[in-house]
Structure formats: structure tokens, C-alpha cells
């Protein structure tokens, strides 16, 4: 296979993955301010896009290994070839698109890990090397356990923060409590999450591209990231963010629980605090899983609000499937790529076909900035609701 062709294909695919990563994760930062009306939907995604762009430019540290130790790379393990990365990326992108179609927030990095694991296992099988290239102990400690701990941690933090926010502002004399004021704060807490996301996630793709260039011998392993890699990755994630994964924003903003300003602020603050703490202690947690946990926790923390556990359950199932599903697609892609150059081209065509099909399917019930949270508003205007019933001590009230 012409080495440069596969390298070009991998770079294109990696940038597309970056793009899906962007629109998949807009919701983490911007779902709650959009749901409470703190920001207009278009303004919110534009803000998130700018912050992601800035964050991506500021992040200069790029991962040294593509899989963070999950796959035994180099000596004694599997050789990470551009074909393998290509297959892994296809698995990750297809899973990202499927979860977007279903409106499920799911971790893009876990999808990438899954795709690579599948591709590596298939690669080892094809090459006849009996050794298992995947370190499953690392899979458990880096992917499975954090996936359980992240939402629990964020949920607990958000629950307590929400309780505090409401307890401090609650007035039993029925006078205005000023909780509208939390809308201003929401803008800042969400921006913090968006900025943190930009610094973390764009560099994942930069790592993939840089390692591909190194593997192809186009760049020495000691040199820094090329400037064009930083620029293209930053632009791809910002564009993806600006597209706004409206389906996921709807799920996170209105599907799990009805978010109110104080609650949204508490949830985003919990998300930001958990992510910052985790990235500084070096105990990596997925932004998506933290953000989802926060929204559920804040829903539990506000009196009279309901958490729709059916939606939460669907999201949980999505997380369970992320690794095996992306892995299965990655393995299939690796199997086809094993045919040689023609296989890679078949892969590319099949991948493009799946992406276009999912996009066409999504057009049947399009979710966009105009209808992301407003569908119920019209019915709300028609029904007279008694607003702000007076809070009573000890009783549950809205």
C-alpha cells in the first residue's frame, strides 16, 4: 500500500473523529444553560466553539501513546500500523454517530479505545501472533472503573451543591428568592467546562495524527507536534462544537430531568470541579460521564424534581456498549483492511456509506437550535400552571 495514501486517509479520518468529538460533547458544557434559557442555543454553541478553539491551541502536551497503555505497543506487543489506527478510528466514528442519532451522551475517548482494541485484537489474529495485545487489567482500571466512578462522584458533588444552593436561597415567607440570578453564573460555569474540554480532547486527535506521522517515518518521534496538526485539530473540534449535537443537548438538558437555573449552575460547577480535580490528580475521568452524572445528581438534589431513570438507563446501556460495539466495528474494519490496499479503500467507502446513512436517518426527525428545547414550550403556554407555590417547611414543593 502506498504509505502516503494511508497516512492521508488516517489524518482525514482523525480530523473527522475530532469533529464528531466536538459535536458529541457540546452538550456536556452547554446543555443546562440552553435548557434554562441562560443562553440562546446558537450563542451557547458559538461560545463553546470559541472556548474549545482557544483550549485546543493552548494544549501543547500530546499523549505519548495512542491508547494510554491499553494496547501493548512496540516491543512485545502489537505494532501500531496506520492501517490499525485507520480501522480503530472507523469503529470510534461509527459508534459516535450511532449514539448521536439516538441522542445518547457517550465518551468519545472510550469509543476510540474500543475501536483500537477491536482493531488490535483482529490485527493480532490475522498476523497469527498468538499473544494477546490488549492489557485487560488496564482496560478495567482506565475505562471500566472510571466509567462507574465518574457519574457517581459527579452525581454526589452535584447533589450536595444543588441542596446547598436551594437551602441558602430558600425563603419561607414567600418573598422573591432571586434564583433567576443563577442564570448569569451558569454562563461562567459552563464556559469553564468548555475550555477544559478543548484542552483535553483536541490533543487526543493531535496525538493520533502525530503518532501516525511517526509510524510512517514522516516525523521523528522526538520532535514536537507539527503546527498544521494543531491548527487543523483545533478548527475541527471547534467546527464540530459549533454544529451542536442538538440531540444530545436535548437529552442532557431536558431528557434526564427538568433543569432550573440554580440546579444548572450547581451541576456545571460540579462538572467543572470534578474534571479539574481529576485531570490535576492524574485520575482521568470522562467529561461526558461526569456531566451526565452531575445532571442526574442535581435533579435528585432539587425538591420536587424528577429524574427520568428510563433515560438514565438508556445512557448507561450506551456506556456499557461503547467499548464492545466500537471494538466490533474496529475489528471488522481491521479484517477488511487485512485484504491490503483494496481492503482499506473498501473500508473507507463502507465507512462513508454508514455515516451518510446515519445522517439521512437523522433528517427524518431533525433536531436543531430552533427546536432543541422549545417543543414543550407551546403546550406550556396553553396550560395555566400555578407558579411558585409557597414553600412549606418539611413539605416537598416545586
Amino acid at each position: 500500500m502506498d504509505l502516503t495514501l494511508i497516512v492521508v486517509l488516517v489524518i482525514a479520518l482523525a480530523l473527522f473523529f475530532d469533529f464528531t468529538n466536538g459535536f458529541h460533547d457540546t452538550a456536556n458544557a452547554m446543555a443546562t444553560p440552553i435548557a434554562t434559557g441562560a443562553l440562546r442555543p446558537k450563542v451557547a454553541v458559538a461560545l463553546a466553539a470559541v472556548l474549545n478553539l482557544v483550549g485546543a491551541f493552548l494544549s501543547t502536551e500530546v499523549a505519548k501513546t495512542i491508547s494510554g497503555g491499553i494496547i501493548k505497543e512496540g516491543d512485545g506487543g502489537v505494532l501500531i500500523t496506520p492501517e490499525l489506527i485507520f480501522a480503530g478510528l472507523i469503529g470510534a466514528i461509527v459508534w459516535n454517530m450511532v449514539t448521536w442519532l439516538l441522542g445518547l451522551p457517550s465518551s468519545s475517548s472510550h469509543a476510540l479505545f474500543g475501536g483500537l482494541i477491536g482493531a488490535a485484537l483482529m490485527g493480532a489474529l490475522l498476523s497469527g501472533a498468538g499473544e494477546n495485545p490488549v492489557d485487560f487489567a488496564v482496560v478495567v482500571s482506565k475505562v471500566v472503573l472510571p466509567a462507574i466512578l465518574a457519574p457517581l462522584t459527579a452525581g454526589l458533588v452535584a447533589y450536595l451543591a444543588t441542596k446547598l444552593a436551594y437551602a441558602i436561597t430558600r425563603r419561607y415567607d414567600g418573598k422573591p428568592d432571586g434564583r433567576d440570578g443563577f442564570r448569569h453564573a451558569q454562563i461562567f460555569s459552563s464556559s469553564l467546562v468548555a475550555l477544559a474540554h478543548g484542552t483535553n480532547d483536541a490533543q487526543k486527535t493531535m496525538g493520533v495524527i502525530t503518532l501516525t506521522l511517526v509510524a510512517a517515518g514522516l516525523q521523528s518521534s522526538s520532535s514536537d507536534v507539527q503546527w498544521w496538526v494543531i491548527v487543523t485539530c483545533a478548527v475541527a473540534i471547534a467546527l464540530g462544537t459549533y454544529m451542536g449535537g442538538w440531540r444530545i443537548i436535548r437529552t442532557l438538558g431536558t431528557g434526564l430531568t427538568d433543569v432550573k437555573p440554580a440546579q444548572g449552575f450547581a451541576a456545571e460547577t460540579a462538572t467543572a470541579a470534578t474534571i479539574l480535580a481529576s485531570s490535576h490528580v492524574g485520575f482521568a475521568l470522562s467529561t461526558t460521564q461526569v456531566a451526565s452524572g452531575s445532571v442526574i445528581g442535581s435533579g435528585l438534589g432539587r425538591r420536587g424534581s424528577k429524574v427520568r431513570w428510563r433515560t438514565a438507563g438508556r445512557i448507561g446501556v450506551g456506556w456499557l456498549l461503547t467499548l464492545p460495539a466500537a471494538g466490533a466495528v474496529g475489528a471488522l474494519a481491521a479484517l477488511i483492511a487485512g485484504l491490503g490496499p483494496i481492503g482499506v479503500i473498501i473500508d473507507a467507502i463502507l465507512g462513508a456509506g454508514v455515516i451518510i446513512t446515519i445522517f439521512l436517518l437523522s433528517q427524518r426527525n431533525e433536531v436543531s437550535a430552533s427546536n432543541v428545547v422549545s417543543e414543550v414550550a407551546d403546550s406550556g403556554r396553553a396550560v395555566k400552571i400555578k407558579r411558585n407555590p409557597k414553600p412549606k417547611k418539611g413539605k416537598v414543593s416545586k
Partner: protein
Amino acid sequence: MIDWLSFLLVLVAALVSACVVVSAYALGIRLLTVSGRTPIVTPAEFTDAITIVSPAEIRQAEKRAAKAARKSPLSEGQKRAALVGAWACFAVSALAVLVGVYLIIGEHLFKIFS
């Protein structure tokens, strides 16, 4: 396997920092309300059935806030103290945001400018 100590550290750090920030801001809002300046921030877009606010309702809310402020039993001095306290609380939250920004990009900035 898994580093439980660092996980515990993450949990405690996140819990303490989030609770401090949220409490400071909430206290700020409470004091602002006490000082007679109830914040009325209408949604940028009228979104769902729960938060929907019509212009008439906004005027109503403003009227109620003004009435509550008039009827406040606090003296002018007390109100002023509450206002100062409110802004002190908001300053704490703002500081926390700056610390957050520093945690995210501080290291990178050092690297770029050094």
C-alpha cells in the same frame, strides 16, 4: 490496579471546591435579595413549560420584588451591609472561576511564554 487514594483526593477536592463556589454565589444572591435588589434575569429564550416567562409575568415578578424591598424591615445601613456582603460573595465565586481558568491553561501559558 486502581489508585483509590487519588480517587478519594479527586472526590474530596471536587466536593469542597464545588460546594464553596455554589454556596458563595447562593449566599450572594440571598444577600442581594435581602438588600432589596432581587435579581430578575429572564431567560434568553423561552424554553420549556416550566421556565416559560411572558413579558407580563416578568413585570409581575419585578413588582413583587419591589414590593418585598419596600416592606423590608431592615434599616438602610443593614441593607447596604447586605449589598456589600453580596458583592463580596460574588467576588469569591469570580475568584474561583479565575482559579479554574488558571488550572486549565496556566501551565500551558507558562510554557508558551517562557
